[in-house]
């Protein structure tokens, strides 16, 4: 923490050059600004290190704050669990709450608050242990001072007491908290020996669960305030189009409608409740103008043309001489893989509440990008950041969609026009489906060459796709324009192939794209893990052993692969018509291998019967939550593999609701078995790690069961589901 001060300042200067918000008028939502960059904040260890900001100790118990968005991944439990460990607390007595956005809570390395990239536990484990340990030491010191004893003779002990063993004296934290908070925090807090962990590594109960089974958990769409109005909005369905004309009268005629508001590219109906607002919206026939008229066929053709021509291609991985090795290889194959746009389809449609009054603004929102959301609202209204108050609610799903702030911007702009009254914006499901930031569609061409022994000697992979960093984090693009998020999963496959070339061709298209659970790996692993299967097939080798032999220098990959094969009974006989497929991938500091088992059923269809997953996420802070995240990632991956797609016609998304955009249902569930590899390594990512393997494992299993090699998604397009 201390040695990096200098370089951190340099980084800060770099950021500052790009600071402020870019107005991407040509992109969606003309009137809505899109945050192009972010003014980084002072982190909590630069002078603002204040352990008792995180922990509030009172006679009634202990409150621990968590600086991440609870969107189902369990951070409101796992993060406090880390702190409570160092602080020697009893879990049952701990209450939790989201931390405010103050300096005391800004991450030392990230310099902003967000909840993405499977980072929350991975990045906060060490800092939160330091916070807990510092608070513990301060409490011990406060007790020693009160007793006038040497501090080394006193110790903290569960459940939240400081004891002096020699005399048997003890004081509760509640008695010491005020005095402790006045002490100077230690520069280098002493962390507990992991061998003495009582809480970390245990499946402690989630703090958010009781409120989520009795209906009391508050999502943004549940916020209630005096004088609250409800709005729903519609943006031009055509990408980049504008609102040309709107006859407001039909909406105004509906009882309960308070206002119809027009913006550059969208409009909103504000009413006493959602129902009149929606009726008002449905009654209107907006006239849109301009915008795209592209369709899915044209998009595919553009991607294929760019990928095929290799124009504007950026090389992202080079090993040896792939072209020469291909030419000299014994056997060669080439294949084209395609994946579609995908929507997040969070269960709670986009929603946010805002009140704009007296030169300030309050927002109630579930967001994955807290500090950017906060800055964004200030920028939008032209007011100082400290006049914006963010109240974080639970998120009814995130998956990357709530990393965007478009819906929040709309709520604020609506509230600005409603004279100080709070406004709750709730999108219809249809709007939510049509106005996403989709996972990019990609086109991929791969070539592989084998030597006489069947070992791969050459591997080329060219990806043609839109850039997502271009909009969400332009400062993270490489100087040559390479989007590193777009090639994740393609540049880091674990196979020791001496000659490799991976390239990326950026294609600009009007479809808004964004981060979707596991981001680049979610699509690239489908491509690489199916293609390595094709190479194994060409070599006449077993797909598991073939992979395993090529995983030299990747012990963590190999360990999860071996265990997945073992648990799945790889190689043991299956009933006729069944097949197994395997896939392995690493992302965001987690390693996962999966084996899918499918059954070919009459009519050329398949059913996924079983998924076995092995995860290495380093130390699992809360194994039950980790397991739940793997199950979740698999179901999410199955929805995508089986039916997930967003298609475009006339410049607009064609899907609208769950009837034409299905997600997996309970009766379509395979048996899912999750194994977490025991580990003492630092905690890695969890929430997104187990999505990339699903589609390739299932596609490879279909090949094993039917001999049919499927190279594009979703599988529904091939008549198999």
């Amino acid at each position: 923490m201390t040695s990096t001060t200098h370089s951190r300042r340099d980084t800060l200067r770099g950021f500052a050059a790009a600071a402020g918000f870019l107005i991407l008028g040509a992109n969606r939502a003309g009137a809505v600004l899109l945050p192009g960059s972010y003014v980084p904040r002072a982190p909590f260890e630069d002078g603002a290190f204040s352990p008792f900001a995180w922990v509030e100790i009172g006679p009634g118990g202990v409150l621990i704050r968590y600086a991440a968005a609870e969107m189902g991944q369990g951070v409101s439990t796992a993060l406090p669990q880390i702190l409570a460990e160092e602080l020697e607390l009893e879990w049952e007595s701990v209450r939790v709450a989201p931390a405010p956005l103050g300096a005391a809570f800004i991450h030392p390395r990230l310099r902003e608050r967000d909840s993405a990239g499977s980072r929350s536990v991975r990045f906060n484990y060490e800092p939160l242990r330091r916070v807990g340990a510092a608070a513990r030491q301060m409490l011990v010191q406060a007790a020693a001072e009160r007793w006038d004893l040497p501090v080394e003779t006193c110790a903290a002990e569960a459940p939240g007491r400081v004891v002096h063993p020699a005399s048997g004296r003890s004081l509760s934290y509640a008695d010491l908290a005020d005095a402790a908070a006045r002490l100077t925090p230690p520069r280098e807090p002493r962390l507990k020996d992991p061998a003495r962990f009582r809480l970390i590594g245990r499946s402690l109960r989630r703090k958010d669960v009781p409120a989520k089974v009795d209906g009391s958990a508050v999502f943004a769409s549940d916020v209630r305030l005096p004088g609250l109005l409800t709005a729903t909005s519609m943006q031009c369905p055509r990408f980049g189009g504008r609102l040309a004309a709107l006859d407001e009268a039909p909406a105004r005629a509906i009882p309960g409608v308070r206002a119809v508001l027009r913006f550059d590219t969208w409009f909103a109906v504000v009413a006493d409740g959602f129902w009149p607002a929606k009726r008002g919206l449905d009654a209107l026939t907006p006239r849109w103008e301009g915008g795209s008229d592209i369709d899915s066929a044209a998009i595919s053709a553009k991607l294929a043309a760019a990928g095929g021509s290799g124009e504007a291609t950026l090389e992202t991985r080079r090993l040896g001489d792939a072209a020469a090795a291909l030419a000299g290889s014994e056997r060669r194959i080439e294949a084209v893989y395609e994946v579609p746009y995908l929507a997040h389809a969070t269960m709670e449609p986009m929603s946010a509440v805002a009140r704009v009054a007296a030169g300030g603004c309050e927002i109630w929102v579930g967001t994955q990008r807290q500090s950017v959301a906060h800055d964004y609202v200030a920028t939008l209204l032209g007011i100082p950041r400290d006049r914006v108050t963010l109240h974080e609610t639970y998120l009814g799903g995130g998956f990357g969609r709530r990393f965007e702030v478009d819906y929040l911007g709309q709520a604020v702009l609506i509230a600005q026009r409603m004279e100080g009254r709070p406004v709750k914006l709730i999108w219809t499901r249809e709007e939510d489906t049509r106005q996403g930031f989709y996972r990019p569609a990609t086109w991929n061409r791969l070539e592989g060459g084998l030597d006489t022994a069947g070992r791969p000697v050459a591997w080329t992979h060219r990806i043609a796709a839109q850039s997502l960093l271009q909009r969400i984090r332009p400062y993270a693009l490489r100087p040559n324009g390479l989007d590193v998020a777009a090639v994740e999963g393609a540049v880091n496959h674990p196979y020791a192939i001496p000659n490799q070339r991976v390239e990326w061709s950026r294609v600009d298209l009007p479809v808004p794209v964004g981060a979707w659970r596991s981001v680049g790996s979610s699509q690239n692993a489908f491509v690489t893990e199916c293609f390595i299967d094709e190479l194994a097939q060409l070599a006449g080798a077993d797909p598991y052993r073939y992979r395993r032999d090529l995983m030299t220098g990747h012990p963590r990959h190999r360990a999860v692969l071996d265990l997945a094969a073992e648990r799945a009974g790889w190689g043991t006989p299956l009933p006729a018509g069944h097949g197994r497929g395997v896939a392995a991938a690493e992302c965001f500091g987690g390693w996962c291998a999966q084996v899918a088992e499918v059954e070919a059923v009459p009519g050329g269809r398949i059913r996924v019967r079983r998924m076995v997953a092995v995860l290495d996420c380093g130390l699992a802070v809360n194994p039950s939550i980790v397991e739940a995240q793997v199950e979740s990632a698999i179901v999410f991956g199955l929805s995508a593999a089986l039916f997930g797609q967003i298609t475009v016609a006339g410049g607009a998304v064609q899907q609208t609701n769950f009837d034409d955009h299905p997600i997996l249902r309970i009766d379509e569930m395979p048996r899912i078995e999750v194994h977490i590899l025991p580990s003492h390594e630092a905690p890695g990512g969890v929430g997104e790690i187990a999505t990339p393997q699903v589609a390739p494992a299932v596609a490879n299993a279909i090949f094993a069961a039917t001999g049919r090699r499927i190279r594009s998604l979703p599988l529904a397009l091939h008549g198999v589901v």
Partner: protein
Amino acid sequence: MTIDLTINGEARRLDLDPATPLLWALRDGLGLTGTKYGCGIAQCGACTVHVDGEATRSCITPIEAVAGRRVVTVEGLSSARGRAVQRAWIEAQVPQCGYCQSGQVMAAAALLAGNADPSDADIDAAMSGILCRCGTYGRIRTAIRAAAQALRG
């Protein structure tokens, strides 16, 4: 026009357009926000409540259709069966984001009311209309079985 009905055991009078879906009467009219909006077209089950004990999609049920009937929402799920389901949900640590869970709990309670020992196929049939984007289905199954067992004693 006013509509009289019973909600969570209390007689209530609603002074709303009779075509208003029960979902929005509950959420905006009565402040019972535990019942969720997910699709509005009977496709997701997030809005599931009990009407005279039957699992019902409140997003497509106009309030005029429930005049004089007994509506129970997740906030009022106080029967022994309802409590057993909620306990099993906590025991199995089912919820993730939680947004679909009121609907899941209400559908499960209705299932157990008519079937003390549901098979996997029964669970599929009763629950397949309640979507969960977070993929909590495995734990839902576990929790329903546990609740059924607890209720059978």
